[in-house]
C-alpha cells in the first residue's frame, strides 16, 4: 500500500524531473529573486519551489518544512521501503539510479497525506516529533482554501471590511471527537481568541506561540503571498497544538476544530467588557477598605481595568519583594527552579546562535550549487561552440571533454540543491526549538505572576490580622462592648475568611503551575534530546549520501580524462 503510493509519486517525479533536465536553467532565477539574503525568504522560496514543480501539489501539500512534526521520522522511514537492495551499511537518500531529482520532501508528504501509518505516531505527541509516544492515535490538521469574506455586521463603510477565512480540516482517530474527519472555517481573529483562552486555561504549560498578528494595511492583507504565508503559519501552529499531549485534549481546541459557524469561545473583547464591571467596582474598591479579591478571580493574573486594585496591591508586593521586604514563605525550591531557568536562558542563546549559523551554512551550500550550475552552463555553451566551429579533431576532442565536465557540473549542482533542501528541513529543528523558547518564557511568567498573587494575599492577610487584633484590643477596653467596633471586627473577620479562601485557591493555583512547569521542562528535555539527535543523524546521513553521489559524478569525469595525465608524464 505504501509502496504503490510511492510509485505513483515517483513516476510523477520522473515526469517532472525530465522536464527539469531539459530545461537546464531550472529555477535559479526564482531562488535568486527570493533573496538569498534572508533565510526566511529562502525557506519560503524552497517551499514555493517545491510547490511549483510538483504536479501533485494539492492545496494542502505544503512541503514538510511547514510541518515540523514530521521532519525526522518520515525521512528515515521513507527510505526503508525503497532501499531493498542497498549494500551500504546505512540508509542513504534516494540513490542516483532512482532518478529522483525533485525535492525529496514531496515523497514524504505524500506518504503522510492520507496514508494511515499506525505504527508511526509521528504527529501524536511531542513538540515536534514522534519520539516518545507509543500509541497509535493521531490528529492531522490541514489549513487550506483561503477565501475572502465580508464583514456582515457593524460595517460603517458600505461593502466594508473583508477578511480571509481558512478551511481547517482535521483528521483524527481520537475518541471523543465527532467522527474522524471534519472541517470548519475560521478567521485569524478566531485563532487569536483560541490562543488567548488556552493561555488562560493552561497556565504553566509550554503553549506553542501563535502566529503574529500583522499590523499592515488591508491591501497587503489581501495579497496572495501574505495569505499563503499566514496559511502555512496557521497550519504549523495548529499542528503544534495538536502535538502537545495536554492541549490536544483541551475543550478550547476541540471546539475550535469542530464547531461550525461562529467560534463559541469568549473573545478577548468579551473579556474586555468585563472591564466595565471592574471600572464600576473601582471606586468602591478604592474607598471601601474591605473588599476582598474573590477566590475565583485569583486563578487569573491581574490584568485589565477590572483588576486595577489588585494590580496596585501586587505591584506594591513585588516592590516589597524586590527590596527584600518580609520574606514570603512560598519559596523553597526556588533555587532549583532558578538554576533551570538560567539553563533555559543559556540554551536559548546557543540555539539562537546555532540557528543563525545554520542559515549561513545553508546559504553557502546554495551558492555553491548555483555557481556550479552556472559553470556547467558556460561549458555547455563552449562545447556547442567548439563543435559547430570545429575544423580540427583536437577541437572535437576538447568539446567532448568539456561536455563531460559540463554534464557533471550540472548534475553536481542539482545534488547541491537537493542536499540543501534536506539540510533546511533538518536544521529547521533548531529554529523550531528556538521558537519554542517563547512558550517557555510564557510558562515561567505564569509561575511568577501566580507566586506574586500568593505573596500579595499573604501580606494582605497579615495586615488584616493585624488590624483585627488592634480593633479587638481597643474594643476590649470598653465595658459592655463597642457596637460599631464589634461590627467592624465581624466584617473584618469575614474579609479575612474570604481572603484566606482566596489565598488557599491562589496557592493551589501556584502549586499547579509549578507542577506544570516541572513536567513540561522534563518533557521538553526528553523530546528535545530525541529531536536533536534525530536532527543530527538526519543531517549527517544527508551530507554523506549527497557527498557520495557528487563524488561519483566527478570520479567518472576524472576517469574519462585520465589519459591526459599519462601523456604528460
Amino acid at each position, binding site marked *: 500500500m505504501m509502496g504503490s503510493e510511492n510509485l505513483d509519486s515517483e513516476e510523477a517525479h520522473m515526469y517532472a524531473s525530465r522536464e527539469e533536465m531539459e530545461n537546464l536553467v531550472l529555477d535559479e532565477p526564482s531562488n535568486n529573486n527570493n533573496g538569498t539574503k534572508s533565510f526566511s525568504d529562502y525557506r519560503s522560496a524552497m517551499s514555493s519551489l517545491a510547490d511549483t514543480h510538483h504536479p501533485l501539489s494539492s492545496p494542502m501539500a505544503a512541503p514538510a518544512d511547514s510541518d515540523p512534526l514530521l521532519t525526522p521520522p518520515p525521512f528515515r522511514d521513507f527510505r526503508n521501503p525503497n532501499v531493498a537492495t542497498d549494500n551500504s551499511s*546505512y540508509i542513504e537518500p534516494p540513490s542516483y539510479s532512482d532518478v529522483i531529482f525533485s525535492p525529496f520532501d514531496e515523497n514524504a508528504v505524500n506518504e503522510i497525506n492520507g496514508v494511515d501509518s499506525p505504527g508511526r505516531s509521528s504527529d501524536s505527541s511531542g513538540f515536534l516529533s514522534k519520539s516518545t509516544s507509543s500509541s497509535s492515535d493521531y490528529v492531522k490538521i490541514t489549513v487550506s482554501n483561503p477565501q475572502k469574506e465580508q464583514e456582515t455586521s457593524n460595517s460603517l463603510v458600505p461593502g466594508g471590511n473583508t477578511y480571509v477565512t481558512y478551511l481547517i480540516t482535521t483528521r483524527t482517530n481520537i475518541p471523543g471527537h465527532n467522527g474522524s474527519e471534519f472541517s470548519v472555517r475560521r478567521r485569524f481573529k478566531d485563532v487569536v481568541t483560541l490562543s488567548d483562552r488556552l493561555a488562560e486555561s493552561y497556565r504553566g504549560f509550554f503553549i506553542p506561540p501563535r502566529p503574529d498578528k500583522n499590523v499592515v494595511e488591508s491591501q497587503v492583507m489581501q495579497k496572495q503571498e501574505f495569505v499563503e504565508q499566514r496559511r502555512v503559519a496557521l497550519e504549523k501552529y495548529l499542528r503544534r497544538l495538536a502535538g502537545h499531549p495536554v492541549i490536544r485534549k483541551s475543550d478550547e481546541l476541540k471546539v475550535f476544530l469542530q464547531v461550525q459557524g461562529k467560534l463559541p469561545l469568549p473573545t478577548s473583547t468579551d473579556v474586555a467588557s468585563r472591564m466595565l464591571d471592574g471600572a464600576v467596582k473601582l471606586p468602591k474598591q478604592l474607598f471601601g477598605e474591605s473588599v476582598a479579591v474573590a477566590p475565583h478571580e485569583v486563578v487569573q493574573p491581574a490584568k485589565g481595568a477590572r483588576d486595577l486594585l489588585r494590580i496596585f496591591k501586587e505591584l506594591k508586593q513585588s516592590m516589597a519583594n524586590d527590596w527584600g521586604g518580609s520574606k514570603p514563605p512560598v519559596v523553597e525550591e526556588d533555587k532549583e527552579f532558578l538554576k533551570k531557568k538560567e539553563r533555559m536562558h*543559556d*540554551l536559548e542563546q*546557543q540555539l539562537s*546562535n*546555532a540557528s*543563525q*549559523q*545554520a542559515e*549561513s*551554512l545553508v*546559504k*553557502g551550500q546554495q*551558492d*555553491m550549487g548555483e*555557481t*556550479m550550475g*552556472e*559553470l556547467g552552463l*558556460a*561549458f555547455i*555553451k*563552449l562545447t556547442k*561552440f567548439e563543435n559547430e*566551429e570545429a575544423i*580540427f579533431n*583536437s577541437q572535437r*576532442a*576538447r568539446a567532448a*571533454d568539456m561536455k*563531460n*565536465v559540463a554534464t*557533471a557540473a550540472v548534475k553536481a549542482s542539482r545534488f547541491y540543491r537537493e542536499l540543501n533542501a534536506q539540510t533546511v528541513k533538518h536544521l529547521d529543528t533548531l529554529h523550531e526549538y528556538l521558537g519554542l523558547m517563547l512558550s517557555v518564557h510564557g510558562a515561567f511568567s505564569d509561575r511568577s505572576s501566580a507566586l506574586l498573587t500568593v505573596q500579595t494575599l499573604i501580606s494582605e492577610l497579615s495586615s488584616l490580622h493585624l488590624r483585627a487584633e488592634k480593633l479587638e484590643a481597643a474594643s476590649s477596653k470598653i465595658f459592655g462592648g463597642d457596637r460599631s467596633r464589634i461590627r467592624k471586627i465581624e466584617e473584618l473577620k469575614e474579609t479575612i475568611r474570604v481572603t484566606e479562601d482566596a489565598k488557599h485557591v491562589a496557592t493551589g493555583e501556584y502549586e499547579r503551575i509549578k507542577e506544570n512547569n516541572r513536567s513540561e521542562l522534563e518533557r521538553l528535555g526528553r523530546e528535545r*534530546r*530525541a529531536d*536533536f*539527535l*534525530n536532527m*543530527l*543523524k538526519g*543531517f*549527517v*546521513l544527508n*551530507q*554523506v549520501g549527497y*557527498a*557520495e553521489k*557528487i*563524488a561519483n559524478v*566527478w*570520479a567518472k*569525469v*576524472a576517469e574519462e*580524462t*585520465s*589519459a*591526459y*595525465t599519462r601523456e*604528460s*608524464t
Partner: protein
Amino acid sequence: MITVVNYQSATLLSPQRSSSGSSHSPRSSSSQPYLSISVTEPVKLGNGVQAYISYRVITKTNFPEYQGPEKIVIRRYSDFVWLRDRLFEKYKGVFIPPLPEKSTVEKFRFSAEFIELRRQALDIFVNRIASHHELQQSEDLRTFLQADEETMERLRSQETGIFKKKPADLMQIFKEMQTRVSDVVLGKEKPVEESNPEYEKLKNYIFELENHLSEAQKHAYRLVKRHKELGQSLSDFGKAAKLLGACEGHALGKAFSDLGTKSETLSVRLQKEAHQLLMNFEEPLKDYVRAVQSIKATIAERANAFRHQCELAETIKLKEINLDKLMLTRSDKVGEAELEYKELKAESEEATRRFENIVRVMNEEIVRFQDQKTQDMGIAFHQFAKGQSRLANNIADAWRSLLPKLEACLS
C-alpha cells in the same frame, strides 16, 4: 629589506607544463637536446611603491649556443615583458605565449596567492617558449636567460614604445578593423582586408572564443570563492554546534561537540580545495583566455602586414605607369625613376614575402594551438574532476564517521 618566499619549481608541481625535450635531467649528455627552465624563489625587493618581486631563473640546457649546461639569473616581471615584446616583434605570425597580467590592485600585489600564481604563470611562459621549435632559437631568449642584471636593465629601458604593444594600441587596431567593415557596408571605400573566407572564419572563431572562455573563467573564479565561503560557514557552524553541545551536556552534548569538530575539519579541507581549484583550474582557464588574446595581437600584425603589402602594390602600379610615361617621353628622369622603381619592387617583394610568411606560420600555429589547448584543458579538467571527487569523498568520510555514535545514542 628582503622577504624570502620559498616555492617549489613549477615543473615539479604542475605536471601539465612539460618542458622542451623528453627529459628534465641535465645529465643525459649525448641524448636529446633539451632546454629546461625554472622560475623560482620569488623575493620581494625594494621599498614602498618601488617594491617589486624578483625571481630566480634557472636554465639547464645542452644547446650549443648557450654558455654552459646551467645558468642562474635574477629576473623581474618587466624583463619577461621585454622578452615577450621582442619575440612578438621578431617572430611575426607565431602565437607568442601569454604573460600573466600586471596587477592593478595594490594591496593584492604581494599576497602569497598572487605571487604563487604569477610565478607559476611565468614558469609556464618561459617553458612554452623553450619548447617552440622557432622561438627556442631566439637570441633574445638567450640574452634573457643568461645576461647579467645590469645588461638586462639596460636593454629593458631601451625598449620603449616601438615594440610595446599596449592594450590601447591593440584596441585601436581592432577598432580600425571594425570601421573598415562598416565603411564597406556604408559603401565608403574599398577595404584593405584579406578576402579569405577561411581566415574570416578563423577571426570570428577567435573573437567569439574569447567571450565564451571569459565567461567560463569568471564562473570558475566564483566557484573558488564559493569554496572559501562554504568553508567559512562550516567553521562558524561548527563553533556554534560546539557551544550548543556544551550547553546541552551528556550524550547529546557530545554529539553536538563531535559534529562541531568535524565541521571545523571540513572547513579547513574546503579552504585547501579552494586553493587547488584556483591554481589548477581557474588559472589554466585564464591562461587560455590570455592565449586567445595573444592570437588577436597576431591577427592585428597580419592585418598590418597585409595592408603594407597592398599599399606597396598600389604604389608600384603608379610608379610603373609613371615610368612608362617617362620612357615614352625619353625624359632624363628615367634613370632616377627606374632606380626608384627597382627599390620599390624589392620592398614590395619583401613585404609580400613577409605577409606570406605570416600566413604560413599562422596556419601551423593554429594547429599547434588547438592541440596544445586540448592537452592543457584536458589536464585541467582532470585535476578539477579529481579534486572535486576527492573533496566529496573526504566530506562523506568525515560525516560518516559520526554515524556509529549517533546510532548508539538513538537506540
